[in-house]
């Protein structure tokens, strides 16, 4: 069977309020992904549209977006795993190409969260939990991750200052990312002094809701070689789930869905954590990045904070992570996020990163989590 590659990757600017319609938002990412490729929309055999429902009024957005991008009459459909929807889209695209059903598939992720007030958005996210048993208590995404943070602190002695150092790093790189919502460096004191949202997480421990889109063009290996100079190969894919309920979790000191997805991806790629040159991890909150270090094997359980203390996850460290600013700087337009992470790794492996290029990066990893650790997706790419 043929190998599968990423030929093109694009994203819109991520912002608090894009001021355009979802179809127009998706065009921005599609344009960047397709520019420079030796194909047109006619060569795209199928499109996979990825977002979390209920942020805009449009039902069945796949039909709308495939029309606007003139991808009809080719098949188009919708996939959803909340915040990891576009990584799931990539997984489906890989399968379709690997199976020989299609040669080129577009994975388009989007979210226009500014259609809602932030309280309404928090309510949607709360309903991303179990609506009979847990949402009625007022569960929110930040609250769920805050409970992971508190448990991690109790077990390993992790401090709020160590969490804040993740934001210091990511804000440093985000400051030079032209696509990021927040392009301002933050000091440790500013982060520690920001208002408490849900203890121990403060305002600057949290990523912001955003509008944005992403687009990844996935192609059969021989086709990819013909349409781009530098195909980026998909060599590892992992996907897993954990319980919808917080009460069903085996532990609150790591995300089981990420551990499991990571294991699968490493195994498929035939490599280990030590072989990764650069990573994008799902830092929806500062604690999430620390959990990712440990769940992906960059550090042993409880030792993730050492990586940030020693600045090993900066671009010139042993294991560069989120050197595009991460979700904390870029903002988190749910359905678009995974595709944006993949785009960053594609740029890194092509030596085209604009924020901070990791020298000689050949293998990159994307860790994209849906909900409060309900859906785990890990993708490994190679130049």
């Amino acid at each position: 069977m043929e190998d599968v590659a990423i030929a093109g990757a694009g994203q819109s600017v991520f912002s608090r309020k894009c001021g355009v319609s979802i179809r127009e938002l998706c065009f921005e990412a599609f344009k960047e992904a397709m520019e420079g490729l030796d194909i047109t929309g006619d060569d795209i055999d199928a499109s996979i549209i990825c977002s979390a429902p209920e942020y805009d009024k449009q039902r069945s957005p796949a039909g709308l977006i495939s029309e606007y991008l003139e991808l009809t009459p080719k098949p188009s459909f919708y996939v959803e795993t909340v915040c990891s929807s576009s990584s799931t889209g990539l997984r489906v695209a890989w399968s379709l190409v690997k199976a020989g059903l299609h040669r080129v598939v577009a994975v388009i992720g989007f979210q226009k969260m500014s259609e809602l007030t932030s309280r309404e958005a928090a309510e949607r996210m709360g309903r991303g939990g179990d609506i009979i048993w847990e949402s009625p208590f007022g569960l929110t995404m930040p609250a769920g991750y805050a409970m992971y943070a508190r448990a991690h602190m109790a077990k390993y002695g992790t401090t709020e200052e160590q969490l804040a150092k993740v934001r210091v790093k990511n804000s440093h790189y985000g400051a030079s990312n032209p696509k990021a919502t927040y392009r301002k460096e933050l000091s440790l004191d500013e982060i520690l002094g920001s208002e408490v949202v849900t203890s121990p997480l403060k305002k600057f421990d949290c990523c912001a809701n955003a509008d944005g889109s992403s687009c990844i063009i996935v192609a059969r290996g021989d086709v990819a070689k013909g349409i781009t100079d530098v195909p980026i190969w998909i060599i590892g894919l992992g996907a897993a789930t954990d319980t919808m309920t917080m009460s069903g979790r085996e532990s609150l000191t790591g995300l089981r869905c990420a551990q499991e997805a990571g294991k699968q991806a490493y195994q498929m790629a035939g490599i280990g954590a030590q072989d990764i040159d650069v990573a994008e991890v799902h830092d929806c909150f500062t604690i999430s990045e620390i959990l990712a270090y440990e769940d992906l094997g960059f550090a042993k359980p409880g030792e993730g904070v050492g990586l940030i203390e020693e600045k090993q996850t900066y671009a010139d460290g042993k294991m560069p992570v989120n050197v595009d600013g991460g979700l904390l700087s870029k903002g988190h337009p749910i359905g678009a996020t995974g595709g944006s992470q993949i785009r960053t790794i594609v740029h890194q492996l092509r030596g085209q990163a604009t924020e901070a290029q990791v020298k000689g990066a050949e293998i990159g990893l994307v860790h994209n989590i849906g909900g409060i650790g309900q859906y785990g997706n890990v993708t490994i790419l190679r130049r």
Partner: protein
Amino acid sequence: MGFENFGTVSFTAEAKAADFITYLEAGKVMATRCRKCGVSYFPPRMDCPRCLSSDVEWFEIKGDGKLISYTVVNYGPTGFENDAPYILALGEFDGGVQIFACLSRDIEQKDIQIGMGLVVSPVKLPDNRIAYEFKKG
């Protein structure tokens, strides 16, 4: 009666597990156990996916649990504006049963410790609503 008055905001009413609410009104927090294979479930389930049986029995969650983790929520979603700050918590009880609920407002924040003893009991909320919460064990 179903889940229409459960918690601060409920989103759906009907469930086969609605007897949970009847027990809650009577002062009991209940879990279920599969009569065929013996597995117990909280949140309670009326179906057992392991052995495909729907022959389950109710049992009361009694005794001391311990606090696994918590967070003080200062910014509640729609419907919870007047509740904040409130404290969400996860407790572990006999047999490894874990329960997600709020910590009682009687507990002062400075007294909260991971690992502290908890009991779970029904609590009446304004507007004839009902839930369960953790108190100090």
